[in-house]
């Protein structure tokens, strides 16, 4: 066997310079990853720059300007590019600002869920015993409840608000991460270099963070990147049912719900957020598949 042992660090089995350039090569050669990354970047950029792009307040309308059809770019960005909705609010500015909130929620939820999942998964896998048993039973229970239903029930009971949506979604989305982290921790725990670290006097917490975590990171990153699209869809479903960010703050799901009654006469109210949602989820899904291509050693195709 030919193992390069970097000086001083007992573990770090993969982080050599060669592995890094291999990852970089994989990134640039993965079409999925590049398309997804560019798409996500463009969408995020447009949503973040929304205040400087659009000329209208997304929450203010006027009765004279109700249900105006899209003017496209006939008046540049000063007109109602994508028309107005049933309350006379500019659809484009609502789509962009709604996108800001959706992306913010999705990212916070995925990061939050990931952190909870990592913590509980490490504890379950490393310590085993009672902690493991309790955490894994909770995981079993959570796995057997559809996320959308649990999230909706709790938001309905607690009352819809920005914080409640994030908290409830994060508390329902840590489960898969915890399971994967626990599995990887179990596998890593019995390897030689962990034993070596233990002999060198590394304690439980240090061991988990410094030695085990780097090794369980790739599967977590794959999962997290694939979860963003799911969370975006869940959040849209929740706001469609009136259990997302409360009105008048724009959200894609809420816009679709509001415009549904006008679908025959003013379809743009629904089509604009619908397309935005689809493109955003598509971009994140491509990125997720791309991340898997890059990080998963088993995927060769």
């Amino acid at each position, binding site marked *: 066997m030919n193992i390069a042992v970097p000086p001083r660090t007992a573990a770090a089995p993969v982080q050599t310079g060669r592995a890094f350039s291999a990852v970089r090569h994989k990134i640039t050669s993965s079409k999925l990853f590049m398309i997804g990354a560019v798409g996500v970047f463009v969408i995020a950029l447009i949503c973040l720059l929304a205040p400087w792009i659009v000329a209208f307040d997304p929450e203010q309308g006027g009765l004279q300007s109700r249900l105006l059809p899209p003017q496209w770019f006939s008046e540049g960005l000063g007109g109602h590019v994508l028309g107005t909705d049933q309350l006379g609010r500019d659809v484009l500015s609502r789509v962009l600002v709604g996108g800001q909130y959706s992306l913010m929620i999705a990212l916070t939820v995925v990061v939050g869920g990931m952190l909870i999942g990592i913590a509980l998964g490490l504890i379950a896998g490393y310590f085993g015993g009672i902690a493991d048993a309790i955490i894994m*039973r*909770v995981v*079993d*229970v959570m796995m*057997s*409840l*559809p*996320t*959308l*239903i*649990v999230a*909706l*029930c*709790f938001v*309905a*009971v*607690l*009352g819809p608000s920005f914080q409640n949506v994030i908290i409830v979604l994060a508390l329902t989305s840590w489960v898969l991460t915890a399971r994967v982290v626990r599995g990887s921790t179990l596998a890593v725990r019995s390897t030689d270099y962990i034993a070596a670290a233990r002999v060198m006097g590394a304690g439980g917490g240090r061991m988990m963070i410094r030695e085990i975590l780097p090794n369980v990171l790739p599967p977590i990153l794959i999962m997290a990147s694939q979860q963003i*699209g799911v969370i975006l*869809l869940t959040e*849209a*479903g929740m706001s*469609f*049912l*009136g*259990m997302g960010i409360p009105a008048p703050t724009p959200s894609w*799901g809420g816009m*679709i*719900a509001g415009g*549904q009654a006008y*679908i*025959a006469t003013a*379809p743009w109210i*629904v*089509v604009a*957020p*619908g*397309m935005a*949602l*689809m493109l955003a*989820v*598509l971009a994140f*899904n*491509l990125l997720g*598949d791309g991340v898997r291509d890059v990080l998963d050693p088993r995927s060769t195709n």
Partner: protein
Amino acid sequence: MRRALQTLIVLFGITVIAFILVRVAPGNPAALMLPADATDEQLVAMEAFMGLDQPLIVQYFTYLGNLLQGNLGYSFTYRQDVTTLIAAALPMTAILGLAGMFLSLLVSIPLGMLAAVRRGTAWDTFAMIAALIGQSMSTVWLAVALVLVFAVQLGWLPTSGSGGIEYLILPAICVASQDYALTTRMLRSGMIGALGQDYIMAARARGVPKLRIYWHYAFKNAVLPLVTVVGSQIGMVLAGSLIIERIFNWPGIGLLMSNAIASRDLQLIQSILLISGFIYAVLNLFVDALYTVLDKRIAFA
């Protein structure tokens, strides 16, 4: 047997979550039942009547006891027993779910097989793009778009309601759209794996007709993992039906639940959460059992 025990623990956990759901509701549940001008004595009497003066653990076991007797409580919005309401709605959701599952398999089996058999060709790309779009499509958006095109513009199908098969088509397409992406992908990778096996080579060498190889030899093996996925998807129909039934006004569990959420009918929300969890857990047990029947290599531990 261990699997059945595990399911029992999960069922127990679901009752705990459903119980917690009502406990975290802000405000006094007794006050919600009384008019705003109720006196303090009335409030105390109501609390005693509802058992709220008991310790939490006693309340939980009272709840559990009622559950075991099939008593899910009373819905104040519908003025009916929750059990009756759910029993009336479940078959409708089951019909919708089965129709959707049928459509999903109708699309994904040929698509997944074609992609595997013609791997790397335009067919494969087409199937994978179709799967990716299915994964990124929000049900909210798809449902509204379908109504716009087929009900409003073309006038071929009714916009909403229930009755003959024409009412079932659009909602079933929406259910199928959530599922076919995953089944197509699973089937494709399963078939590719199976087609690479030695026994397929042997069959080819013996001159077994191609179609027979694909269906009889490869499909049979690729279908096993599909069983698990389809099983869990049937459970997920409950979550998807929330939005789909609301848009198409299909009188199933989803519509019941979105009405319950809109009117904050705690008893009904709690019971639907409970029932969905139960159905999903029992379905999973059933699927696992089916899996062992189909695959003799796995002993049902």
